[in-house]
């Protein structure tokens, strides 16, 4: 065996380099290639192809996040180029200011109420409607488009419709007559946030239905057939086959709904006139806008943002663990 190897090595010798180069000439080249491979992987072209998106992520996502964290630890405000300003390090002062501000605390409570209503309702309705749409034979495209239209319509326009529906003299109160709440929906401290949560469920449902529809295409039909053979009803098939089969999609829906919900801004800004009534629908992002942009305190706004990020990460991690565990 060793003789054969030696012979092979001897026969390969001249091929190592033109004109019978030294047998050690390939060593540095190989070493250099392996270093490149260690950094860029076995297919460096992949890195080249991925680079534009990586740069995009760094410039558009990672840098602002890092900068926000930096701002939250400094007495920071936006200044004109060349203006001589001091932005000293202030440690946790901005976080202290945020955590002792009743308005900020209320906004975090409000967003929790929103998420508790919005996220489960979004996931449940999206799954039920996707399941129904998956089985429907006639007018399938029409129904899919119908559910998707609110999602692609500008919030400002849709908010106008909901103002018409839920204002004191609006359609909903006209239908309810004496059962209409007093104060009315959007100026009622107990109802304003739930109305906003319902609005967002309705507006975004089309997107989440699409996610579930895609997931439902991958559920093997054999599972339903065998369940039917075992005598399972439609509801039992839904509970025992569909729900477990789309669990990864459910995790995605819950996490995305949590993230987008935590970013709530347009609805309290427009639907309830700046977080009214009396701050009952103010969201952390709305308060960030007020403090950071209107009141010129981007450092405080950044601290709110960082706390919101941490909160969303924790909620998302818990959701993922709960939903994805077997």
């Amino acid at each position, binding site marked *: 065996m060793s003789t054969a190897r030696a012979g092979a090595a001897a026969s390969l010798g001249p091929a190592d380099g033109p004109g019978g180069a030294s047998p050690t000439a390939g060593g540095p080249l190989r070493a250099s290639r392996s270093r490149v491979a260690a950094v860029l992987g076995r297919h460096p072209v992949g890195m080249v192809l991925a680079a534009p998106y990586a740069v995009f992520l760094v410039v558009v996502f990672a840098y*602002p996040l890092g900068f926000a964290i930096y701002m939250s630890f400094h007495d920071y405000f936006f*200044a*004109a180029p060349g203006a001589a300003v001091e932005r000293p390090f202030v440690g946790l002062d901005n976080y202290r200011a945020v955590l002792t501000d009743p308005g900020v605390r209320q906004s975090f409570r409000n967003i929790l109420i929103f998420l508790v209503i919005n996220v489960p309702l979004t996931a449940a309705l999206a799954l039920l409607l996707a399941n129904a749409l998956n089985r429907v034979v006639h007018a399938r495209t029409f129904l899919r488009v119908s559910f998707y239209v609110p999602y692609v319509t500008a919030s400002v326009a849709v908010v106008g419709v909901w103002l018409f529906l839920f204002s004191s003299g609006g359609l909903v109160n006209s239908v309810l007559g004496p059962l209409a709440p007093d104060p009315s929906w959007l100026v009622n401290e107990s109802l304003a946030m739930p109305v906003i949560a319902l609005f967002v469920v309705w507006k975004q449902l089309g997107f989440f239905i699409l996610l579930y529809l895609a997931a439902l295409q991958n559920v093997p039909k054999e599972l339903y057939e065998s369940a039917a053979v075992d005598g399972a009803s439609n509801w039992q098939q839904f509970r025992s086959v569909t729900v477990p089969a789309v669990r990864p999609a459910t995790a995605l829906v819950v996490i995305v709904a949590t993230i987008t919900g935590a970013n709530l801004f347009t609805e309290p800004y427009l639907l309830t*006139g700046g977080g009214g009534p009396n701050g009952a629908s103010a969201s952390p992002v709305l308060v960030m806008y007020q403090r950071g942009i209107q009141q*010129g305190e981007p450092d405080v706004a950044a601290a709110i943002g960082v706390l919101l990020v941490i909160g969303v990460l924790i909620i998302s991690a818990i959701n993922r663990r709960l939903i994805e565990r077997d």
Partner: protein
Amino acid sequence: MKRILPAVVLTATLTLAAGCGDSGGGGGDADKANAAAGPITIWLSNNKEELAWGKAMVDAWNTQHADQKITAQEIPAGKSSEEVIGAAITAGNAPCLIFNTAPAAVPQFQKQGGLVALDSFDGAAQYVADRTGDTAEQYKSPDGKFYQLPWKSNPVMIFYNKQIFAKAGLDAEKPALSTYDEFLTAARKIKSSKAAQAAIWPAPTSEFFQPWFDFYPLFAAETDGKQLIQDGKAQFNSPEGQKVAEFWKTLYDEGLAPKEAYNGDSFNDAKAAMAIVGPWAIAVYEKVKWGAVPVPTSSGKPADQIKTFSDAKNVAMYSACQNRGTAWEVLKFATSKEQDGALLDKTGQMPLRKDLPAAYPDYFSKNPAYQSFAAQAARTVEVPNVPNSVAIWQAFRDAYSESVIFGKKPVPDAFSAAAQKADQLAAGS
């Protein structure tokens, strides 16, 4: 870990979608810039009438100054003009002049280093004093300098719909609205007669600027012209401030003023019998037969003694401007007697000029409806020019919403807490 890191970055950045930025570098020699002449850019309000005036003014300047042309454009769209201007200052691309700078935003723009002190131009302080008189003092910054040129005001008064008043059995020509009691009596009559859905419908929403169109005009009248903050101290937690608050609270408690915002213009749509607004709205109220009276006071002060909120918009020069010499000349040209007259004629808004009725007698004899606004323009109160101005207004609005509009807290308690916060903010902390 490989899966968590991208998730962390993605989640975090989605949450912080309202990204912030900064820039560095730039600057320049201020003295050299003050003397520099050349083309400049200005921003105008997107109000139709003001745009028409602005374009005519620019044309008039450009025909005489071929080498120092003005390029005018509307203030770019945004949630508010102040937000757009603040962003432009930070980016270093603000124009030379903005003919719609809100006095409440000036302290913030000044802190950002975005404004040029007009006093740095020869004779500027004298020019402002000669044109505007004593009223100009309200527009000085705490350092004693002018970072804004007082331009025009919209003294806030009570508009009333004559047809609704007649329908409610009220005197439509000389309605009794000078005291709080008279005002409330008229409001109750409007409501009980169902002549209109609301007696008056100021926006009950939470934006920081809403007090300018409910509490503040009446506060100025009740206190003979006190600002919200004076000498670094909040003034609204006073017997006068609480009288004004209780007046509005009665309107809300009795349903004479709705607690829900109207989606549109309630006065123009005849849903409200009265509105509290300045003369800019006259152009909008084409289909309403209206009259105007000064805001009420608790004791019914004579009309010629009543002060009110100015709702002024001013002109400021921004530090990104390179050709400041030209900008200063344009500023004087645009606020000359001739251009002020053109502004009055086209927009019905009151130039912040001394003795306005005497300056434009022809206009006011042709437009008698504007005479009361011209008289009122001499007795206006501005928002205080103090640090954290917007934050102070927001703190006040939150307290007002809580106590006056929604009645969740007694007015004295809410105002006392807000006054403490306002004092801290005014001190710059």
